[in-house]
């Protein structure tokens, strides 16, 4: 089967992982801009990163027949310094017209602070000004519920943003329902310990249905698995779910959301 992994951080993965994705049927991926594990000190540092995402990674992926798309943003973990954030926000528009950039992301909140909210509002305004798709990072663990509510309030306060063009990612049992109710897309992340196991992710499809939901590995430099989507698909297959449903969750749904960008072509 073919799978799209719509959220994976290949900048922190090896070339062997590209090979593993390709031989496993994952031919299309999208990579949101994220935290490097340390705070970058200058806007030029972000420019280097955005060039990496838009030039180096698509070329590395192409060697394995994989289409690599990306999202550009200042991630919420680096939003506390408002002066630096302003400088980075001024750089971002230069990258939005590049051929593999699908939109603004991943933006959102980390510790739900006032400065993080200000930077989120500016990203949302930029997305509205440039008619961009939006990929949202929701906070981790105890901060997720509050952060998800605050994020949805900010987006809903911008009338030019259509919720059907916003993916709210890293949703969990206590946030999926309210995200869907408000018309946004829902992302489920498959992590060995801190997010969904394949079994728990399959539970979510059984409880909340398969409309406007995607799953991703969000594989990065932490404990994560670039083939996690395949394992979740296999879990659904093992439970007896039809292939059409599995294909919807792992291929057709991400294709439908991402195809709202005219640049996106799935393979």
């Amino acid at each position, binding site marked *: 089967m073919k799978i799209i992994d719509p959220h994976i951080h290949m900048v922190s993965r090896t070339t062997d992982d590209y090979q593993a994705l390709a031989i496993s049927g994952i031919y299309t991926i999208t990579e949101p801009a994220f935290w490097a594990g340390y705070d970058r000190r200058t806007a030029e540092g972000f420019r280097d990163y955005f060039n990496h995402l838009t030039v180096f990674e698509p070329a590395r992926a192409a060697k394995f027949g994989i289409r690599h798309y990306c999202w550009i943003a200042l991630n919420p973990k680096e939003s506390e310094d408002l002066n630096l954030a302003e400088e980075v926000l001024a750089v971002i528009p230069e990258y939005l017209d590049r051929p593999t950039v699908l939109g603004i992301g991943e933006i959102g909140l*980390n*510790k*739900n602070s*006032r*400065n993080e909210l200000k930077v989120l509002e500016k990203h949302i305004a930029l997305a509205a000004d440039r008619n961009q798709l939006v990929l949202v990072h929701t906070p981790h*663990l*105890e901060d997720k519920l*509050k952060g998800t509510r605050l994020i949805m309030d900010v987006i809903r306060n911008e009338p030019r943003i259509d919720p059907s063009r916003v993916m709210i990612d890293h949703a969990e*049992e206590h946030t999926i329902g309210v995200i869907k109710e408000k018309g946004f897309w829902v992302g489920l992340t498959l992590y060995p310990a801190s997010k969904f196991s394949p079994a728990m992710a399959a539970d979510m499809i059984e409880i909340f249905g398969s409309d406007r939901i995607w799953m991703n590995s969000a594989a990065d430099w932490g404990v994560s698995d670039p083939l996690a989507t395949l394992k979740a698909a296999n879990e659904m297959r093992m439970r007896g779910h039809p292939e059409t449903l599995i294909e919807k969750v792992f291929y057709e749904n991400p294709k439908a959301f991402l195809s709202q960008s005219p640049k996106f072509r799935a393979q």
Partner: protein
Amino acid sequence: MSAEDVLNTYFIDNRARALEIAAFLDRVDRAEDAEAGKNDFRYKALMRALKILVECTENRAQALQLNFSDLSTEPRESAMGLKGAYGAWEGASDEDH
């Protein structure tokens, strides 16, 4: 899946998880500062979670997520120096959950 299928497929994994929790609690007990550990907000959140597992009759996963969540509504004044999460809310009380 039938309930028997669910048990056949997932029982051993979850038996192991129950033993992991038991061993974790025993480990805290053996620590020199066990009482301090038991007063930690994370330990208390886990003990509330175990009670929820016993008393809750539906939507247990969602109930556990709420148990571990920050239920306040106002934004934090600053995130300076903060990056990670603890997994439980330090401000929680038994009445909140």
